[in-house]
């Protein structure tokens, strides 16, 4: 099996609070993976370790065979759960900013995605609604030719039209050479786009499986399973 991310006995401790406790998972190349769990289950900590923002306290993580650092940051494109653009910019500036920052940024693709998301490149960041900001951030993140895309809560707080555009952008931009890791607590809205599911509970991997196998075995959709596990 071709693993893009290998995690072995990984733990993260903040003073005496355990955020991640002895996690081991391997993530296969070319899949869309959902990381599910309530607030405080360790999702964001795990993502921050994958994106190289945080360092683990114990254990090992390899991304494309390398420990997190300059190389892994160059192949991981990350959508944080909040806006990361300066309010004084307009969309065009934001694209130029991204192009400056990332070698793998495809400007043409960014403009295509703007079009797809129905965004105007002259709009100011400060004038955008929450849904528009989310769509812009996602367009920028997907315009990098990355091996791994990490999307933290990509549809949180957006209206149904924006949600559908975001889901379509994710599906259209998914390909066999890249891996998408997505966290969400809006399980019902997103579950059908996940191939594999990882349930995190209190800093541990509660369950990691193929989504369709889970549906077949448990005779329920992932959303119902989520409620059973965390309800």
């Amino acid at each position, binding site marked *: 099996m071709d693993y893009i991310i290998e995690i072995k006995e990984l733990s993260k401790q903040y003073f005496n609070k355990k955020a991640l406790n002895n996690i081991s998972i391997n993530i296969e190349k070319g*899949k*869309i993976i959902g990381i599910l769990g309530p607030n405080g289950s360790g999702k964001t900590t795990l993502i921050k370790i994958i994106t190289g923002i945080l360092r683990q306290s114990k254990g090992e993580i390899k991304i494309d065979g390398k420990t997190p650092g300059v190389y892994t940051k160059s192949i991981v494109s990350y959508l944080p759960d909040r806006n990361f653009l300066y309010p004084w910019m307009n969309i065009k500036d934001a694209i130029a900013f991204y192009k400056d920052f990332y070698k793998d940024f495809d400007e043409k693709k960014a403009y295509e995605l703007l079009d797809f998301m129905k965004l105007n490149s002259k709009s100011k960041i400060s004038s955008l609604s929450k849904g528009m900001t989310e769509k812009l951030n996602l367009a920028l993140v997907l315009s990098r030719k990355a091996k791994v895309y990490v999307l933290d809560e990509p549809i949180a707080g957006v209206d149904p039209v924006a949600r*559908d555009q975001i*889901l*379509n952008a994710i*599906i*259209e931009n*998914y390909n066999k050479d890249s891996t998408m890791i997505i966290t969400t607590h809006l399980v*019902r809205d997103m579950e*059908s*786009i*996940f*191939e594999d599911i990882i349930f995190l509970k209190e800093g541990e991997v509660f369950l990691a499986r193929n*989504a*369709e*196998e889970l*549906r*077949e075995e448990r*005779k*329920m*959709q992932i959303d119902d399973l989520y409620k059973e596990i965390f309800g």
Partner: protein
Amino acid sequence: MMFNDHLPIYTQIMDIIKQRIVSGALREGEKLPSVRDLSTELKVNPNTIQRSYQELEREGFVFTQRGMGTFVTEDKEYIAKLKDYMATTLVKNFMIEMKALGFEVKQVIELINQQIKEEQ
């Protein structure tokens, strides 16, 4: 699209496509939407759609033409058989549930006749 059944999504998609075939919405020999298109239409992982197409092919309802896409079978008889089978299954399940509610066959027929009149 929301999937509410207690079934995996790929089987639900197979059912949607079978319905489209027997109803004539998809004609014999007609090209199915591409995996990518159906994937965005239904908001479903492309690999799940791919699996539905593969299973439909295994069951003989569609065939793949390399580099051209997936097509509905040209075998009209086979489609007619599927239509029969789907109808029979529906009726069977309906009868099981009516019996579970305590209805006699005669009463069921009466109810159906009543319903038909109302619809006319």
